[in-house]
C-alpha cells in the first residue's frame, strides 16, 4: 500500500482557485467578516457588555460610586414580593391595552379611507405621520394642558355636551386614560400608513369579484380586507407591544409635579408608574443600582413572555 505509484497521484491543485478549498473553511471568508465586523464590535462594546454587566450588577448592592457588595439572589427575592413592581406591570399592560385597541381600530378606518380617497393623498400621508415624529416631551406638555381639570380641552368638550368635569390627572383611571390617549394620538397615523401599505398589496380583482357576487362594503371588509391584512395587523400589534411595554417619557412628563416630589412616582396612587419608570426611580432616585438591574431583568422577562405570545399568534397563522 505504501508503494502506491507516484504517477497515479491526482494532478496538483493549481487549477483550483484557493478560495474554494474546503479545508480553509470559515477563515477563508475573513475579509467579508472583517467588512461587517464594525457593527458587531460596537454592539459588543456598547450592547452586550453592558447587558452582561447589568446581570452581574443584579447580584450585588451598589450605590453607583462605592464598592459593590455581593448580595446573591436577595435582589430577585425582593423583586418577586415587591408589590410596587407588580403594580407597575399592571399599569403598563392596562395603559397598553387602553392605547392599542382604539389605535388599531382608528388606524384601520383611516387607512381604508385613505385608500379610497383620491385627492391630496400625499398630504394626508404626511399629516398622519407627523404626530409620530413630534417630540414626546412636547406632546406630553400639550396633553397636560388638554387634560387639565378646569381649563382643559377635554373637560370643555364634556361640559359642552352636558357632562361633569373629570379630574383627569388626579384620579387613577383618569391618568391611565390620559396617557393612553396620548399614545393613541401619537401612533394612529404611523400605523395607518402601515395598514395603507398592506391594503395596497391586496389585488383589485378580489374586490371586483366580490362586487360581482353582490357583496356590500361591510361584507367586503370583513371577508376580504381583514383576512388578507392579518400579517400586517400582527406586525402592528408586535410593534405596539414593544413600544407600549417601554413607555416612559409619556407618564414622566405628563405627571411631573413640584420639585419636592419625585418625577418618577407616576401621579396619585402610582397610577401612571410604568415598568420602565419604576426601574428608573429605583436606580437613579434611590441610587439602588443593584436592585435597578434586577428590575430591568424582570422587565426583560415580561417582554420575553409577550414576545412568545406574539410568536405563538404568528405560528398559528402559519398552521392555518
Amino acid at each position, binding site marked *: 500500500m505504501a508503494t502506491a505509484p507516484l504517477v497515479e497521484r491526482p494532478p496538483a491543485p493549481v487549477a483550483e482557485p484557493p478560495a474554494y478549498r474546503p479545508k480553509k473553511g470559515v477563515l477563508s471568508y475573513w*475579509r*467579508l467578516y*472583517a*467588512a*461587517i*465586523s*464594525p457593527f458587531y*464590535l*460596537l454592539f459588543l*462594546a456598547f450592547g452586550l457588555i453592558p447587558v452582561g454587566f447589568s446581570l452581574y450588577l443584579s447580584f450585588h*448592592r451598589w*450605590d*453607583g*460610586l*462605592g464598592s459593590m457588595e455581593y448580595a446573591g439572589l*436577595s435582589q430577585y427575592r*425582593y423583586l418577586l414580593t415587591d408589590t*410596587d413592581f407588580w403594580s407597575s406591570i399592571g399599569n403598563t399592560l392596562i395603559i397598553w391595552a387602553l392605547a392599542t385597541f382604539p389605535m388599531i381600530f382608528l388606524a384601520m378606518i383611516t387607512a381604508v379611507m385613505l385608500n379610497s380617497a383620491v385627492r391630496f393623498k400625499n398630504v394626508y400621508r404626511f399629516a398622519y405621520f407627523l404626530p409620530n415624529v413630534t417630540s414626546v416631551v412636547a406632546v406630553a406638555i400639550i396633553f*397636560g*394642558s388638554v*387634560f*387639565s*381639570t*378646569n*381649563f*382643559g380641552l377635554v373637560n370643555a368638550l364634556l361640559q359642552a355636551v352636558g357632562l361633569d368635569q373629570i*379630574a383627569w*390627572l*388626579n*384620579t*387613577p383611571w383618569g391618568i391611565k386614560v390620559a396617557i393612553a390617549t396620548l399614545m393613541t394620538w401619537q401612533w394612529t397615523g404611523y400605523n395607518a400608513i402601515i395598514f395603507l401599505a398592506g391594503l395596497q398589496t391586496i389585488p383589485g380583482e378580489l374586490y371586483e369579484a366580490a362586487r360581482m357576487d353582490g357583496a356590500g362594503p361591510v361584507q367586503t371588509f370583513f371577508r376580504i380586507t381583514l383576512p388578507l391584512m392579518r400579517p400586517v395587523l400582527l406586525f402592528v400589534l408586535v410593534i405596539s407591544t414593544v413600544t407600549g411595554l417601554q413607555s416612559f417619557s409619556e407618564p414622566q412628563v405628563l405627571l*411631573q*409635579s*413640584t*420639585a*419636592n*416630589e*419625585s418625577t418618577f*412616582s407616576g401621579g*396619585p*396612587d*402610582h397610577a401612571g408608574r410604568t415598568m420602565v419608570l419604576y426601574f428608573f426611580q429605583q436606580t*437613579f*432616585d*434611590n*441610587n*439602588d443600582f443593584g*436592585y435597578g438591574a434586577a428590575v430591568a431583568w424582570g422587565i426583560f422577562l415580561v417582554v420575553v413572555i409577550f414576545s412568545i405570545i406574539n410568536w405563538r399568534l404568528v405560528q398559528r397563522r402559519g398552521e392555518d
Partner: protein
Amino acid sequence: MRLSRRGLLRAGLAGTAATALGGLASGCAVPNGSTGRNMVLWYWSGGLSDTVVKKAKARYDDAVDLDAIQIGGYYRSKLITTMTGQAHVPDIAGLKGEDMASYLPNADQFVDLRTLGAEKLKSQYLDWKWQQGVAPDGSLVGFPIDVGPVVQFYQPAVYEKAGLAHEPKDVSKEMGTWEQFFAAGEQLKKRVRGAFILTDITSVFEMSIGQGTERFVNRDKHFIGDQEHVRVCWDRAVEAKRRGLASSIVTGTPDSISATESGKLPSQLNASWNAGDLKLQYPKTKGRWRVANCPGGPSNVGGSFLAITKACREPEKAFEIITWLLGPDNQAQGFIDAGLFPSTPASYEMRKLRESDPFFGDQITMDVYGPAAEKIPVAFNSPYDVALGQPIRDEIKNVGVLGKNPENAWKDAMSKCRRIADHLGVST
C-alpha cells in the same frame, strides 16, 4: 458614486481598525484628571453665576486653564459615571444639594477640604449648610454654594380682601405658626370665593419636615420615619386636608396658572429661588406679590456644593479657585445673576442685595430671606432618606388628592417603609 467590492472591503477594514484603536485608546491613554495647566470644572445650567465663572477664568489665566463646563441632563448620573469609569473626571465638581447625602458615604473619592485649610473659612458660612457637606468620617466633601430658605410668597391684595394681615411684617407675625396660617386659610376660603391658601397638602408635610432636626433615617442607619417628629408633620398635613384648605389643582397645568393669576391661589410656600420662577411664569402679576416668613419657622429646599475630586492633581489651586468663586462678594453676584441665595451671611448686608424688587412691590426681600436662612435647623441627611421618605410622601399625596383614609394611608406607608428598610439594610 459606485462602490467597488474592494473599496467596500477596505472601508470595512478601516472601520474595524478605527473601532479597535478607539477601544484601545480609551483603555490606556486616558487623561485622568488634570494634566499640567488644565483644570476642569463641572456644573449645571444656573448652578453658578456665569459672570463669576468668566471672571474666574480671567483671574486664574496665568496659573491654570480653567475649563468650566455646563453639563446638561441628569447631572448626577453623568458625574458618577465618569467617576466610576475613572476617565475624564472633572477636577472640581458641583454636587446638588438633594444628592449630597448620597455622595457622603463615598467621601474617599473626594479631597478632604480640611487638609487644604477649609476650617479657617468656616465662620464665613452658614453653620447648618457647612455641616451638610461633612461626611460621616468627619472629612469635608462639599464647599457651600447656595441655600434655599423657604418663605411665604403671597398676594397682599387677596389677603386684604379676605380681611387678613397683608403687610409683610404683619403676615410674618400673624401667620407665624401653622395654626395661625390654617385659621387664615379658613377665613380666606370664607371671604374670597374659590380661593385656597394651599395648592396641595404635600407642601405642608415637606416644609414641616424641613423645620425639624430629624428626618427619616438617623446616623446609626436606623429608620425613624415612624416616630413622633414625622407623625406631627403628617398630622399637620392631614389637618390641612380635613379643614379643606388645599385646592385640587395640579401644579403646572393651565388651571394652576389661571388660578394664580386671578388670585385664587394667592400663596405659595417655597424656597427663595422660587422668586425667579414666579417672575418667569406669571409676568402679568408683577408688583402683586410680597414675601413673608414661612409659618412654623424656617425650612430649606435645595442649595448645592462644590467638591474637589481625587482625580485632581492640583488640589491647592482648585481650592483657591473654589474659595474665590464662593466668597461673599461673588455669592452676592450669584444671587443677582442666577437667584443663588448666598450661604455667606456677610453677603446679606451688601447694598446690591438690599435693593427693592419691583416684582414684589418694591419690597426689600432680603429682609425676609436673610434671617430665615440663618435660622434653618441642622438635620442629618441620610443617604437612605430619599428611598424611605418616598412612601410617606406618596401616601400623603394619596390623602390629599384621592381622599384616602389618613389612618390607612399611614399604615400603608409604614409597612412599605419597613419592607424597603429591611431590603436596604436599614434597621427598624
